């Protein structure tokens, strides 16, 4: 048998020495092996797909008892209270489930982190893709990606032990665990995503486009700002959205760094005040909450809301990613 195999490799004509027609058993064996292989691979893939659906099902299933109690108008009232009231007292005898302050808290730290991470990330991506010499780029990219590998609790400890006292002593804030602290830390956590996705997008814009721009007499800055960035905007937006998802879904850091006071800062722009996010509320209260109570269900309601946010963001980023791919194929 080995000889034949050897012959096949040596001499192309020898491949006919093998009978073209397989015996029935060989045929069947091949058929079964193919189907089994297909089935195993399908099942493995299917497990991860089904996991997503099960999570959706479970979270929504546990949310429903919170909403559907009593008459329809009661249901609407409960949803209205949940979305518009800022009074979060889930453990009291007459509980109040107003999650507005908590939803706004998530928005504060997410938007705050983006305000820092997007300019920094975009500039870093431009530097890496167009300005930095090859060696610098080769070393910088992996180091930036290490940022994503640091466990979030380590960031959290840094936020509480270093950033918080620093903000109190140097900036004169009355409390160091606040929206700004959480935003800064989250910005660092979102940076690697934003930088690497935008950098890939910028690099994907071909050399000929840049050369065409130079050829028309544009300077380097003009080329960058007016040609390359607009051309790569889909990829940059996708990177920003992926970074945003990282920030909105992050739990440990905000739980440690944001202070967890459930109210909307007033005045609204004052980031030196404590806020509480959706993720931190779930993490902090789920541990000991008695099962099948309103408090338990309302935490799942927050979870559903969070799931809707990230799902939407994911869809949007997929849309822009698809655009990038289409463009790449078009060229």
């Amino acid at each position, binding site marked *: 048998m080995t000889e034949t195999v050897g012959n096949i490799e040596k001499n192309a004509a020898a491949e006919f020495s093998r009978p073209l027609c397989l015996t029935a058993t060989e045929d069947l064996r091949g058929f079964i092996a193919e189907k089994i292989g297909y089935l195993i691979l399908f099942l493995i893939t299917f497990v991860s797909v089904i996991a997503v659906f099960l999570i959706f099902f479970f979270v929504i299933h546990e949310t429903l008892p919170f909403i559907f109690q009593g008459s329809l108008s009661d249901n609407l009232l409960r949803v209205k209270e949940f979305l518009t009231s*800022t*009074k*979060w*007292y*889930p*453990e*009291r*005898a007459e509980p109040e489930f107003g999650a507005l*302050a908590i939803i706004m808290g998530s928005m504060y730290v997410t938007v705050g982190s983006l305000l820092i991470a997007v300019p920094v990330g975009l500039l870093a991506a431009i530097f890496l893709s167009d300005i930095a010499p090859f060696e610098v780029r080769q070393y910088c990219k992996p180091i930036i990606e290490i940022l994503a590998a640091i466990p979030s609790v380590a960031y959290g400890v840094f936020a*509480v*032990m270093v950033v*918080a*006292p620093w903000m*109190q002593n140097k900036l004169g804030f*009355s*409390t*160091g*665990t606040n929206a700004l602290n959480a935003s800064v830390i989250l910005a660092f956590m979102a940076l690697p995503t934003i930088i690497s996705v935008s950098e890939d997008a910028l690099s994907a814009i071909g050399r000929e486009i840049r050369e065409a721009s130079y050829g028309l007499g544009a300077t380097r800055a003009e080329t960058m700002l007016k040609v390359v960035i607009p051309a790569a905007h889909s990829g940059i937006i996708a990177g920003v959205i992926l970074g945003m998802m990282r920030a909105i879904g992050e739990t440990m850091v905000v*739980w*440690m760094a944001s*202070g*967890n*006071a*459930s*109210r909307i800062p007033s005045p609204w722009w004052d980031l030196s005040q*404590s806020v*509480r996010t959706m993720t931190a509320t779930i993490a*902090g*209260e*789920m*541990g*000991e*909450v*008695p099962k099948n109570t309103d408090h338990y269900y309302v935490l799942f309601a927050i979870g559903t809301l969070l799931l809707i946010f990230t799902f939407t963001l994911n869809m949007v980023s997929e849309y822009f990613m698809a655009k990038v791919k289409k463009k790449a194929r078009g060229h």
Partner: protein
Amino acid sequence: MKSNLKILAVLALLVTAGNVMAAEKLTIDGSTTVGPIGDAFAEAFKTMRPDCSITVSKTGSSDGAKALIEGQCDIAMMSRFMKDKEFATAIEKGIMPVAHAIAMDGVCVVVHRSNTVSALTSEQVKDIYMGKITNWKQVGGADKPIVVISRDSSSGTYETFEGLVMHKEKMSDNVEYVNSNPQAHARVKSTEGAIGYVGLGFVDRNVKALKIDGVVPNRATISKGIYPVSRPLFLFTNGYPKLGTTVFQFCTFYLTEEGQEIIEAKGFIPVTNY
């Protein structure tokens, strides 16, 4: 959901059927505050009495009382005494609840070291957490806004504080929440205007424990019950346990040296006075 539970129960039966006879079973249910002590006692029993298996579940004091009344557990852990209503239901069902106070739980109000305030009344502490008092000068300190720090609402320490200080009043929405005693300690240590509360075991030189209603929090004042933010922790059994049984051993374990060490290690105060 129910059918799942049934399947689980059947599975559990199948698993335990293998070593039937061998194990004496003890079921303990109740408070999440007393839970850590229950867990650690059960752990100690594992080496002392390998022949008996103990399950500890932590669902809250009310659930513990309910389970004892329904005869679903041998020992109920409770961070409060049984309510009149629970007692009455128990008697109706032929259960005679007996309390064993196994430890004291004291919560110390702490502030930054530099704070000039060294004593508050419990009324003032309550007003601070309600947001009525927002500056230290209102209670005789420096002109500095108060940063109010609380444990998360699922912790036993929060439950104690809320029950003994807040008296059903709502905490203000300015209150910041942290998720562990060490973190509460760290925040108070590093924040000048901060006030927080931690278990006695976490008070050290880096923070200042306040006198409450004129009483210094320490082991003696807490175990004697003079310090206002302290309460006993109970085990409840049906009647006084028969001498020599495992239940008896478990309920008197707090009197042993090992038991007292465990209680202290978990941040509570043994009920001794010598």
